């Protein structure tokens, strides 16, 4: 199994500068993209039941090793970091392509797992993109993944209910945020990570990719500009003090303004 993960700024830490209305990024702690943690847990549960090896794969700067190490402390066997200056600025096309080539180089696999989307870009396009590049069957938005009689069964959460899809291996599965409880890193896992030697680092050339297919050059899309949506502070009536008092003031204000339900 190969699990594709990304390191993203912690969602709770995302703060917008009240003056410049831009994202505060400097010094913001990062984490494994939350849906990817659920994908890791799916892989670990499949391994608990059926055995096999799990490889975590990420693409990004060397600081992403942190996330690979955390994945391995959770129980992932080894990891691959695809890191190259030429990859910077890639949109979902070169990202999917580069991950596909890395998976190709990893060799034989049964299932590729990804989170449904990342919390920093929220496209959900890279998983299906990898399946497209590698010409594999795909089952997206899964809340449950089982192997039944040699086939993969994924329960997809769709707008009007759940669909169960079945496909042969090898295949690609994307996993929904919140579908399981990702395990914590174990002590033995941490020790294994500390001994080192589990992360393989590849460059774009290592996976056979020419620089013009990558990064900004290889991306069909560009972000032309970003407008900040300035949400006017609503300047609300905020009551402070003893609850018995503030509640009366609030209810009075709500009823004065004919707020629905009050």
């Amino acid at each position: 199994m190969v699990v594709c993960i990304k390191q993203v700024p912690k969602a709770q830490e995302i703060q917008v500068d009240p003056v410049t209305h831009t994202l505060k990024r400097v010094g913001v702690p990062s984490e494994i993209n939350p849906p990817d943690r659920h994908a890791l847990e799916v892989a670990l549960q499949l391994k608990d039941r059926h055995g096999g090896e799990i490889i975590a794969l990420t693409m990004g700067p060397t600081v992403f090793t942190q996330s690979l190490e955390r994945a391995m402390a959770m129980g992932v066997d080894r990891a691959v970091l695809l890191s190259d200056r030429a990859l910077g600025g890639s949109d979902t096309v070169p990202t999917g392509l580069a991950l596909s080539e890395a998976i190709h180089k990893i060799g034989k696999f049964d299932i590729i797992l990804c989170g449904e989307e990342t919390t920093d870009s929220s496209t959900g396009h890279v998983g299906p993109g990898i399946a497209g590049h590698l010409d594999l069957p795909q089952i997206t938005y899964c809340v449950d993944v089982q192997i039944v009689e040699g086939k993969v069964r994924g329960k997809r959460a769709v707008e009007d209910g759940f669909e169960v899809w079945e496909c042969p291996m090898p295949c690609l599965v994307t996993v929904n945020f919140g579908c399981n409880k990702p395990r914590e890193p174990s002590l033995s896992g941490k020790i294994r990570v500390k001994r080192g030697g589990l992360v393989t680092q590849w460059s774009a050339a290592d996976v056979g990719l020419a620089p013009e297919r990558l990064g900004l050059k290889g991306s069909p899309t560009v972000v032309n500009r970003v407008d900040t949506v300035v949400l006017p502070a609503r300047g609300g009536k905020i009551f402070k003090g003893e609850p018995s008092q503030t509640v009366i003031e609030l209810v009075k204000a709500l009823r004065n303004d004919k707020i629905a339900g009050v």
Partner: protein
Amino acid sequence: MPPPESKGVWVFLEQRRGRLRDVSIQIIGEGRRIADEMKVALSGVMPGWRTEGLAREAVEYGVDKVYLVEDQRLENYLSRPYAKVMVTLIRKHKPEVVLYGASKNGRDLGGRVHAIIETGLAADCVKFEVTKERNLDMIRPAYGGRSLAHIICANHRPQMASARANVFKRATKTPGRQGSIVREQVDFEDRDFDTRMVEFVESKGQQGAKLEDAKVVVAGGYGLRNQANFKMVDELAKLVGGSVAASRKAVDAGWFPKEYQVGQTGKTVRPEVYWAIGISGAVQHLAGMQESGRIIAINSDQNAAIFEMADYGIVGDLFHVVPELVKALKGTGR
């Protein structure tokens, strides 16, 4: 420079259980507007089985030409054969714009197709504009909804995008509107159908749908400290006639099911009244509720971001405030 022969605006027409999906009717409306501005035809692609009636309906909604691919095995959405239909027809007819509804299936499909064709795909767009250079300015929320990113795909065609559900207005039907329906053949192989749908279970309680349609939403957050305390939220919700929701942290902690999560990775709600109980107001949460009519916040931290967004609020310990509030609402003149 983009290939000069590319012409026309396309929409992916998603049929589901014998009906054209709402989001498809919405992108017909927006696709029509873009096609008119570019002075080209609007076409639709509809894979399915016995869906000619739906193709005629799409024409009445404003599509000039529907490419219909009928095969019994296309009755339900499946990634591989549907992607093959799109890729085959895009290569054959070379549209300059292709829009998908950002349903789960629309994103699943677009993600696969854009990788095979190697062209740009912007996710979850909320607005489109045509530039002087005849590019489509594809505008989508970024940074948890605090910014709008303008995405341009200048040198590749088609320019593809998915459109967020319930943002664009539904197209209106013109009974008797004329258009053409073109049957297309796609050479499928057995392996295109290696995936099958084994089961479909329709959501019964429709509580998810209820949350998005609710006039009043009462949401609980991490400040509730544990699952049992959510009964306070329940009680308040009953009193004000609201649907219950939760923040990501509360869902993350396992106190409440994911279907009730409001925020960037959950649902977007626009109720008349939104109660935020013990929710600090992380950007990703605000992204899912900032368009609410009136926001009422209860939080012990007076510096919590939620108070900036609030029309009303109480700074205080929710374990004291909420019971008092319940008492007050029960007590008088209702």
